[in-house]
């Protein structure tokens, strides 16, 4: 088992070192979304990491997945994070789709010849996701969608959009998950958002204007969409946290090398106890984050009853710890850390958003806190 995971991780490392790391700075600067590289990621098996083998998935465990995304993120955190979102979409179709839906969409998603996007957040509904207003009106055997989705990763490049839309009453119980293929009349996209980081993947609004899709594009039962959306996010949160961990580990490794090589006042930086303490804290925080992530991934694999809180805790802790470690690595590099060419500031910018998306870290605390209080 260990030998097999080692082999998987080595394959990911080879891919990340050959295909991602040499290009990460340029893709960030040029805001280039490397679709051709994603195809090669698909060849490796990264399109459906924990999707069943039947239609082309790799059918690995969540425990494998967090190790894979950590390694991938060492090459490029933004591309690793996009691939993690793509996997969430593929998994949702594989898990909640019927045989016909899986046969139609999984092969392309697994090969990454077709990319996937997840559409939940709206301009007026972020953390309060049950307040979404995008509607899917039933018209015979079709749904007709109207509304706007915000902050959609991969929008404009994806072949498949999973859209959470209101098919019934207000609140969480009136939402369905509907697959909208690219090219459907009435589907359009906003401008590529100007962002602090995550520049190598596009983020756009997705606009639905009388978009008509067959009812057979709905995943699961009508009104089951909110639960499907949240289940997707449980695993998504772990993968995003794993991407944070990979980026931070890379930054720590860089910082370690730098404090050995850089001399101040006649001695290497590493000779200072304050530097040593800082490095020790960085390492400890990342090890703790990895342990929490592995714990949550195991619970997800086993279907443990407390999986939601385990994932929320891991996401909150790991994304905070990783951002702080990357930011500290920047500080250890002094002025050089602030330069694009060292790559550290890019990772800091990229990791910042992991504390916000796939459920803000405040929402993660709400999940954990509510669960605690409700035990009383």
């Amino acid at each position, binding site marked *: 088992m260990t*030998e*097999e995971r*080692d*082999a*998987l991780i*080595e*394959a990911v490392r*080879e*891919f990340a070192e*050959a295909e991602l790391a040499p290009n990460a700075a340029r893709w960030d600067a040029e805001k280039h979304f490397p679709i051709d590289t994603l195809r090669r990621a698909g*060849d*490796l*098996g*990264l399109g459906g*990491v924990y999707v069943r083998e039947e239609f082309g998935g*790799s*059918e*690995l465990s969540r425990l494998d997945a967090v190790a894979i995304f950590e390694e991938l993120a060492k090459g490029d955190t933004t591309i690793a994070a996009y691939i993690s979102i793509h996997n969430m979409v593929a998994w949702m179709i594989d898990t909640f789709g019927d045989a016909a839906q899986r046969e139609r969409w999984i092969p392309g998603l697994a090969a990454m010849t077709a990319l996937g996007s997840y559409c939940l957040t709206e301009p007026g509904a972020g953390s309060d996701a049950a307040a979404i207003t995008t509607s899917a009106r039933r018209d015979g055997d079709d749904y007709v969608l109207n509304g706007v989705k915000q902050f959609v990763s991969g929008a404009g490049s994806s072949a498949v959009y999973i859209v959470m839309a209101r098919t019934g009453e207000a609140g969480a119980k009136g939402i369905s998950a509907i697959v909208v293929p690219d090219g459907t009349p009435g589907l359009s996209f906003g401008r590529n958002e100007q962002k602090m980081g995550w520049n190598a993947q596009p983020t756009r609004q997705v606009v639905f204007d009388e978009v008509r899709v067959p009812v057979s594009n709905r995943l699961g039962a009508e009104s089951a969409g909110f639960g499907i959306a949240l289940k997707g996010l449980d695993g998504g949160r772990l993968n995003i946290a794993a991407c944070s961990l990979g980026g931070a580990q890379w930054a720590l490794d860089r910082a370690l090398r730098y404090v050995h090589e850089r001399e101040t006042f006649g001695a290497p930086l590493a000779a200072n106890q304050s530097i040593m303490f800082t490095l020790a804290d960085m390492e400890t925080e990342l090890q703790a984050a990895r342990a929490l992530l592995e714990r949550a991934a195991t619970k997800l694999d086993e279907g443990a009853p407390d999986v939601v809180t385990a994932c929320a805790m891991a996401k909150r802790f790991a994304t905070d710890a990783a951002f702080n470690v990357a930011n500290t690595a920047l500080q250890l590099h002094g002025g050089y850390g602030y330069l694009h060419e060292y790559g550290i500031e890019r990772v800091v910018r990229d990791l910042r958003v992991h504390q916000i998306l796939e459920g803000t870290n405040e929402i993660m605390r709400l999940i954990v806190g509510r669960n605690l209080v409700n035990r009383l």
Partner: protein
Amino acid sequence: MKIIVLVKEVPDTYGERKLDLETGLADRGASEAVLDEISERALEVALAYADAAGEAEVVVLSMAPESAAATIRKGLAMGAASAVHVSDPGLAGADLGLTARTIAAAIRRTGFDLVITGNLSTDGSGGVLAAMLAELLEVPNATALSSVEIAGDSVSGTRSTDDGYMRVSAPLPAVISITEALPDARFPNFKGIMAAKKKPFETLSAADLEIDPADVSVAASIMTGIAEKPPRSAGVKITDEGDGGTKIAEYLIANRLV
């Protein structure tokens, strides 16, 4: 068509490579162990042919310590159909003669139409194993090929020399060795890695091959001394006092660098 590709686990060239001064063997703990890149290229030649021809069976074969099994399995993950691992504590430190006799016995036992090896391993750098195997197997040998074409009953290719290149060919069965001019190997993918554990993996001892590593009736090389590589000394500094160019030329000539 059965193609055997010889693969070797070597210390990563990016890491520090050291000899154990007690045993004279490579210190395998000193750096990360990897599949030799030239082995990967040799395997790629076989796999590319198998992809195109459809009916070729590719076997990876290695004589290596027990710990090398994971590295050999990478060959299966890349696409080889089965693996043969000759592993025997008695073979530790085997010289080229014993290595060639053992591998030839394993090749004969496995059966082959074509054997493909790298021209030179990254660690031992012997560069003669392919020729020794061909001699022992009594088949033709084409070494240091920078291009390879495999047909149903023959193999041909380009062999680079200092003066130019020659076109060579041989009927099968044959042994060839290839150079780094051949393409990079494919990445193993997740499916390949997961499938690798279900593929045949045969482990053989020297006795299984009727090889006695301690047989003193066969000529063998004996290591008589070993020393650590001397530390690098500072380079020669030439101060230009009007004759800098002459001094540089003299230095290059004295060290046979021009």
